[in-house]
């Protein structure tokens, strides 16, 4: 189950999707909006995606994980739009016969998602300003 959604993620549904009668261990990663970023107070995060490519890239990394580990169920759900503090922006659930594969595959999926999938996070601060997360030019650009 791979999806992008504008609504709060149903974490329980994602988890239930990946439990199979053959699975003994399940690892789940949940990314949530936290109330600060580099000492600045965050009000909410806003995610945008290049949606078809994001889905396609998530499918690729799921395939890659399945080649590396004998895993059974995989659910990857990313929320788009505004995500208030304390709510989930991403849920990745992986089941396997044994816990080691579930942990390793889940870690691989979130690490690779964060590096490869075309989704961007805009941080909205309590002081009313906002900026794209980590967006800095190679050389300091004079942005007007």
């Amino acid at each position: 189950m791979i999806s992008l959604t504008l609504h709060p993620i149903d974490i329980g549904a994602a988890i239930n999707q990946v439990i199979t009668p053959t699975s003994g261990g399940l690892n789940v990663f949940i990314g949530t909006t936290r109330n600060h970023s580099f000492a600045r107070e965050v009000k909410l995060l806003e995610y945008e995606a290049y949606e078809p490519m994001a889905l396609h890239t998530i499918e690729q990394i799921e395939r890659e994980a399945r080649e590396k580990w004998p895993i059974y169920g995989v659910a990857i759900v990313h929320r788009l739009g505004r995500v208030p503090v304390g709510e989930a922006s991403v849920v990745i659930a992986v089941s396997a016969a044994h816990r080691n594969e579930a942990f390793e595959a889940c870690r691989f999926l979130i690490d690779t998602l964060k590096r490869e999938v075309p989704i961007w996070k805009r941080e909205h601060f309590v002081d009313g300003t906002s900026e794209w997360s980590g967006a800095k030019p190679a050389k300091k650009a004079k942005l007007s």
Partner: protein
Amino acid sequence: MKVRLKLFSVARDLAGFHELEVELEQKARASSVLDVLVQRNPHFKDWKPSLRIAVNQEYVHADHALRDGDEVAIIPPVSGG
């Protein structure tokens, strides 16, 4: 040839548009679209090293040969998760 250019995140803010049909010379490479963007806004030059390019929703190298009708996306450093 013509390609459909898509910009996201900070690249869209910098360019001031999200989508544009761009006319390129025959034998254009993926990096050619960056040259077009730099012509329109010199600030893109500083961003060039951190931008990736996707053609038809796959990441490509800068020297990837473009074809008429391609969808070319400018991918600033991603920050999902």
